[in-house]
């Protein structure tokens, strides 16, 4: 039987960031994933690093996450494209204008440097946006990551930091005895661990059940749309005051239309399916925001499964009644905050004074 100090189940951005930080602090870490590293939501999300869509309470964390993303060469890898861009959140109607002002004010109270700007000012920042907007919210702290490269970057960094990776290992049982953990895999192999961290994203409900902890984790299948490569048609990250949209053009010329329009999907067999009517809605909103987009073609559509707790706030921290067992997941706008949340959990693990009370799992038990 193989042994490890820390077994992390789930090799997405949460598990990966926590594992990386622990390994850098000298711990022997094994990351287990039933697929490959960052092949779930971490690798297929829109990669938007915006404050405009972040839950107000999570803004301080998203800001720290954003800073980490802007400096990936220092802690992760050079093999991932990250771009800093201005973020514009658009209001098209008077009602939306009111909503935008109100919501931006709250986000600002939580630390996001968002200002309301006029149509003219917004057009000066990005001349490609629809001229019919009423106003826009502007934030310099925005940008995006090419999320498809996440797996590459994390695999490389984890390997360099001597984290062991068990990919395509599906956990069937966790045996807790004498304050230690025996992880039993579907293939019959076992792993002996002193500490345990659960970071299985949308599968967290099922994984927590292995320790007889019952909480609800919703699975939100979200659609993403990408265009073929086209000449530069925009230079900001666009979101909207009302409704779901995130829009940006990558360096290679493709435009990614996201925002979290629901598709169909389930966790059991990892099946996802697009809802054509929601694709149309999402595309319309995108073309309304940046009219030039209408001349392009959609090259690909895919879905990612986002995890959400009953109050749509993260669960991060110690698992009660277990020794050295932790959980991290359901972080809203998790891609932006993930690296920082992972770092925080690692610090907590290492005994530092970190306040994670806002994310305590006890609120659901």
């Amino acid at each position, binding site marked *: 039987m193989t042994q490890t100090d820390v077994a992390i189940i789930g090799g997405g951005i949460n598990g990966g960031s926590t594992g990386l930080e622990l390994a850098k602090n000298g711990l022997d870490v094994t990351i287990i994933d039933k697929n490959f590293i960052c092949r779930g939501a971490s690798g297929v999300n829109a990669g938007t690093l915006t404050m405009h869509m972040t839950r107000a309470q999570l803004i301080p964390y998203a800001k720290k996450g954003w800073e980490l993303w802007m400096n990936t060469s220092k802690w992760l890898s050079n093999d991932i494209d990250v771009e800093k861009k201005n973020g514009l959140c658009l209001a098209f109607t008077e009602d939306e204008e009111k909503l935008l002002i109100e919501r931006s004010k709250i986000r600002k109270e939580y630390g996001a440097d968002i200002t309301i700007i006029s149509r003219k000012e917004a057009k000066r920042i990005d001349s490609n946006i629809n001229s019919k907007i009423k106003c826009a919210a502007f934030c310099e702290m925005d940008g995006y990551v090419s999320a498809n490269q996440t797996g590459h970057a994390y695999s490389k960094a984890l390997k360099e930091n001597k984290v062991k990776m068990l990919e395509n290992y599906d956990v069937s049982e966790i045996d807790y005895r004498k304050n230690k953990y025996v992880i039993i895999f579907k293939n019959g192999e076992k792993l002996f661990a002193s500490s345990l961290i659960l970071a299985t994203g949308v599968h967290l409900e099922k994984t927590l059940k292995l320790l007889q902890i019952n909480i609800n984790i919703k699975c939100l299948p979200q659609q993403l749309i990408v265009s073929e490569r086209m000449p530069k048609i925009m230079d900001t990250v666009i979101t909207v005051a009302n409704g779901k949209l995130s829009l940006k053009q990558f360096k290679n010329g493709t435009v990614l239309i996201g925002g979290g329009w629901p598709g169909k999907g389930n966790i059991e067999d990892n099946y996802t399916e697009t809802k054509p009517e929601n694709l149309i809605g999402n595309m319309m909103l995108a073309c309304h925001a940046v009219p030039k987009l209408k001349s392009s073609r959609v090259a690909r559509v895919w879905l990612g499964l986002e995890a959400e707790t009953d109050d749509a706030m993260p669960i991060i921290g110690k698992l009660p009644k277990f020794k050295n067992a932790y959980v991290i997941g359901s972080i*809203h706008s998790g891609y932006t905050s993930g690296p920082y949340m992972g770092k925080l959990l690692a610090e907590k693990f290492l005994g530092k004074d970190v306040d994670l009370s806002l994310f305590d799992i006890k609120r659901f038990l």
Partner: protein
Amino acid sequence: MINNRKYDVIVIGAGPSGVSSAINCAKKGLKVLIVDLNSNSGGQIYRAPPKTYKSISKKLEESEIQKKFSNEIKKFKIETAFNHTVWQVSPGFKVNAFNETSTIQWQTKSLIIATGTYEKIIPFEGWTTPGVIGLAACTVMLKAHHFIPSKKIVLAGNGPLLMLVAYYIIQFGGKIDAIVDTSSKIDWIRSTLSLITNPKNFKDGIKWIFKIFFNRVPIYSTSSIEKAVEVDRGIKVTIKNFMTGKTKNIVSETVAIGHGLIPSTDITRLLRAEHIYNEQKGGWIAKVDRFLRSSVKGVYLAGDGAGISGALAASDKGLLASSALLYDEKIISEKEFNQYTHKILKKLDKFEVFAIAISKLNSIPKNLIENIDNDTVLCRCEDVTKKEILKAVDQGAKDINQIKSWTRLGMGPCQGRTCQYATSKVVAEYLNYEIKDLGYLTGRSPIRPVPLDRVLGDFDYEKITKVEAAPL
């Protein structure tokens, strides 16, 4: 957008197998819709010039067969949706398509997929140079429009398509500077015995070869194109004989190259059907039973989609798949089904000998893969080179989907149709893996690029169906 018309069967693809299966179902009273992105039935094989080409279209065999298809479709009251590109198929089944002006959704109980094949091209240095075209693409020009791509041309690749294209080009007044064939003359002679089992095609083949010899077209056997460079007024091609290592440069105007065909699996991959790897049958194919049922209930494969067996077998495969459907839907009895399919299966066995011989002539020699230069682009949609692929593999990418997300290979408009085959070969050889161990690209919608203006039309902001924003 939603039309919601319901059918018993939707047949996707109106080539010979699609048409024969549609007729078979319609004859038994089922409500059938046949969809094709072309303006008429016939598929790639029976492609006829438009009706406006009056002087030539009458005499052609293609036109005759095509006319027969059209008449039968009308006779059996099969609904048609030509000029419609299917972009999404979802379980249940919902088929989404678009045409010149709008999008449409149909529903159906069963689905017959008769989407045929597309062409296989093994990349080489300069294969994305303007003027390098596909051999199958060249046949479309020749058949559908009686155009030759240029006055002078180099044909390269392998298989009978080389000879067919050569024949037509000479027929239409073009000059062939060279035929570059990866097979040897012995390969051709060896295949004769098998090819003769299909006298009709064999006779055509002899006719083509006579024409080529009579016109003294230089043939380079066991050779491939090493490099193509754009030069003043044309393309300079370097031909390399991989047995002797000798090279020769030729300047021509166009290069048409093709290494056989790949079964189209877009829709079956989208529906998460099981697939298997079968090199002889064209690569990754949907797994089917003897009667061409896929692993997804209600989805049947007609034609070359579940393995290449050629145009002559196509209509019989259509009959087989549709008979399975009719039996599963309890429209024909077990007895009728057995009697009918027994005959078809016997006939198909005969075609199989021919198909195997063709596939041998289309086999990809190892050298062709080994000789791909490190800087050669494998994925032309996203400009991913062999070097970048191998770097990802070195850093731990273990299957084709991981290679896709790390390098963007297969993420462009063609969705990997062009690059998957060659990339899998390159990586399998590099790692000493079997291709099946690398897996296949997960099917993603849209299966063809969807023009946004066409799908969306003109719309008012107020009319957009909104989805509530995330909580604050």
